[in-house]
């Protein structure tokens, strides 16, 4: 690959949906700045490039690598290690790489449970209960498909990560800002944050950016959003009994969902320094339950129909427990 002296940029997706790539394309005109300031050496979704060239690159020769997607199989991990080796700055980009995201909910189930749901579905004709096999003999020889880990992992659970950029996907204006910062830093006009920092997000939580009115919190009843006759457009959703993850979710998105009348679902992950996102949300919500009577508290809690789904929607693989027992034990007990 021609070396035009420009700093090299790479973006890779592991177990992801591609939304991060779209979010990067959505920085619109800024994409031209990237083109102007970087030599894009590697970006599967947008361009062709030769894998052997990446392998051939000297260590640390890629200036900036945005890595999105979780680590679902050994192939993902292999590339994570390769890009770590080749990159000066490796950014865990987006919810999947930082927290595990929605696909991380797979950590609630065993592999067989996942297979059964897919290959014994109502529309599937599979009388012999055929399952995909890691190695399978065909007339012409043997075919391989990568086996996947029983537990999905985040990027920093397999390699050392320089920065974290949360969001599902990261908001384009945040991406643009980070691109600006890195470009400035390259020209010695700005300081890069300390290693391990979270970039492209604020210090506080979504409520900080939310325009809704809030009062002293007391919750007597949790309701589900589609059951609400009319959602008050001004008032804090939580105060309307709607389970909103805003209070525990890192700011950075601009409180988009609450502004659109929908509850925050937590895609920006935990606030600065929080060890376990779900715990923060649990403790906050429980604390404002307006009752001291165990029975009444329990009946109020019945309004939270799916605690794990609500508290660990995006962060299960990065939580303290990381996965539920069936995933760890792979269904074997």
């Amino acid at each position: 690959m021609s070396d035009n002296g420009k700093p090299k940029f790479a973006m890779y997706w592991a177990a992801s949906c591609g939304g991060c790539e779209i979010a990067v394309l959505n920085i619109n005109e800024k994409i031209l700045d990237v083109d102007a300031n970087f030599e894009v050496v590697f970006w599967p979704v947008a361009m062709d490039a030769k894998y052997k060239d990446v392998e051939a690159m000297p260590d640390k020769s890629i200036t900036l690598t945005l890595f999105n997607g979780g680590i679902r199989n050994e192939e993902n991990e292999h590339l994570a290690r390769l890009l770590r080796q080749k990159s000066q700055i490796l950014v865990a980009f987006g919810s999947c790489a930082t927290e595990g995201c929605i696909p991380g909910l797979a950590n609630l189930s065993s592999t067989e449970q996942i297979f059964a749901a897919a290959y014994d579905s109502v529309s599937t004709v599979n009388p012999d209960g055929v399952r995909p096999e890691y190695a399978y003999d065909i007339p012409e020889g043997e075919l391989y498909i990568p086996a996947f880990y029983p537990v999905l992992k985040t990027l920093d659970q397999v390699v050392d990560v320089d920065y974290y950029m949360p969001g599902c996907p990261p908001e384009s204006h945040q991406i643009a800002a980070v691109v600006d910062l890195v470009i400035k830093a390259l020209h010695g006009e700005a300081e890069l944050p300390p290693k391990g920092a979270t970039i492209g997000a604020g210090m506080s939580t979504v409520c900080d950016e939310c325009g809704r009115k809030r009062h002293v919190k007391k919750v007597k009843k949790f309701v589900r959003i589609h059951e609400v006759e009319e959602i008050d457009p001004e008032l804090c959703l939580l105060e309307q009994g709607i389970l909103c993850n805003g209070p525990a979710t890192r700011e950075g998105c601009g409180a988009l969902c609450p502004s659109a009348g929908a509850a925050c679902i937590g895609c920006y992950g935990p606030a600065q320094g929080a060890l376990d996102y779900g715990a923060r949300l649990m403790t906050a919500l429980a604390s404002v339950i307006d009752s001291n009577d165990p029975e009444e508290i329990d009946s109020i809690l019945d309004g939270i129909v799916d605690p794990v789904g609500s508290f660990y929607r995006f962060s299960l693989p990065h939580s303290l427990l990381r996965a539920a027992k069936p995933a760890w034990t792979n269904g074997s007990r």
Partner: protein
Amino acid sequence: MSANGNKNEEGKERIGVYVCHCGSNIAGVVDVKDVAVWAKEEMGDEGVVVARDYKFMCSSLGQELIENDIKELGLTRVVVAACSPHLHEQTFRTAAERAGLNPYLSELVSIREQVSWVHTDKVKATEKAKAVVAGGIERVIQNEPLEPLRVPIHPATLVVGGGIAGIQAALEIADAGHKVYLVEREPSIGGHMAQFDKTFPTLDCAACILTPRMVSVGEHPNIELLTWSEVERVEGYVGNFSVTVRKRPRYVDTELCTGCGICWEKCPKKVIDEVFEVGIGYRTAVYTPFPQAVPKYPVIDTETCIYFQNGKCKACEKLCPTGAIKFDQEEEIVLLEVGNIIIATGFDLFDARRIPEYGYGRLANVFTSAEFERMCNAAGPTDGEVVMRDGVSKPASVGIVHCVGSRDRNYNNYCSVICCMSSLKFAHLVKERTGAEVYNFYIDMRTAYKDYDEFYQRVMGEGVLFVRGRVAEITDATRSPGEEGKLVIQVEDTLAGRQRRIPVDMAILAVGLEPRADAKEVAKKFGISCSAAGWITEKHPKLDPVATMTEGIFIAGAVQGPKDIPTSVAQGAAAAARVLSRISRGEIYLEPIRATVNAEMCSGCRICNNLCPFNAIIFHEDLMVSEINHALCQGCGTCVAACPAGAISGTGFSNEQVLSQIEGLLEFSFAEEPVLMEMTPA
């Protein structure tokens, strides 16, 4: 964010670990030498540079050991493994401080109360001791140097309640030369004691001993008396409370009133006095509860005053020689600044009507102890005559029922303390004044304390009869001619082991003591706690009975639980002493365990706003952030645990400290082979 490791950038902390033998108390079960050796060898990576074991760490020699190491080895952290922090935390903190180390960089972990004294298996105990020490080491690394909080003390004191306990407290402080505000709900101070005639066991007259005290309160230059008043609101914190008092209008100008008494002598409106005379005596619409009332000024009861009811009369106004009657007087709001508060709001009496089978309110000659007290009082409705409801005939036989509403799972489980003795007093007075036959129905006789049992002997000597057993019923349904026209007391005599029906002319119910009806509101108002029943909770039942969990607020007398007069007086004095020591120090030091909001991280979600019972959390609407007032904060950490943004941090018990301690404690989770989860590829 990893909780362990250490925050000290320029390298590891230098930690000293000291394992105490406590003679054989610890060493007898825990292999202390092994623990020390292990700490040095295994915890070296964490920064342990020295680990010693010693016979008595708390001895001066033990403390010197630590001090020398701090100086010579330049220790930056100290862990002592010995007894409970509640015993010696201060000891070792002081030792550290003497050696120039911030006291809060030392940690005392308990391997005595929590290990050697409760476990027998030496191997397991030693292993647990190591885990506990590891927890202490991981924790102490996260400790931060702290300074105790200094709070100045305002020299004035508020005493709430003008009963004997409040009076005692007020006088002690005032005599020491400090300002006291005494707030009393009724028109006069004196409380229940003022209603009595005699007091047990000495039988000296209540008025004779109480009145002088009341008078000196009234006249004391350092005491500002606010009767007919109630505390409305309490704000601020120890050393600096600001109290709002609502002063109801007396309709009497106390500047002009001389207390001559013409007004109440001439008042045409007579009403039953439900309060002081407990319904068996009368008062006028303008009145003082009793002759020796302090202050001497009367109040006008607008509910019954003819003028207030239909605009006519004004007799008192016309006849008052000094023109002190002021019908247009209005209620006053008084604002007080005080440094400490003593609550002595006393008790209520159990309502005998709640036990229908005793017939009070239905059977004319069933009396309550309160009614009997008034009846015996020379200044009472019967001029001290013991008579039946008709007001003339004297009883030939009297039954006194103990434990009415007390020691009864249907009402109150507790013992009301005073009933046995006052029942004995009643028995004596009945005998003395009527010569009637007297029965005492008791469950157990409780005559502890000086001269009490002697009094019991004496009353027995006077021929009073004692029946051991809980009275089942008092009835006028007669079964034999002998019972005609009498009250029959149905009781199981547990000594004779048989049912007895004892006919008497008069029955006296020794009703128990209960918390004030509004005790819970009062507790909330002052930010203190009370038991489910309503008795205010003391800071420590034995070692700190007159303090509360809330700094600067003390309690005295029956507000804390049933008490007799001597104990109430003692508590009044004790509370005063606690307050005086603070006033003379001028400031107090508070443990710097406080919560703090990081404004940059606070999202203004207001989750925490409702969580502080001490109202220490303020929300700034303009900045949309919450803030914590350190003087109000008591350091419970509830808001720290609740903050979804992790914006609130708590000194002394930070997340890092607790999480690290957990890691330390779990270092020995896998003494035996860990159970591996099966991890097969898909």
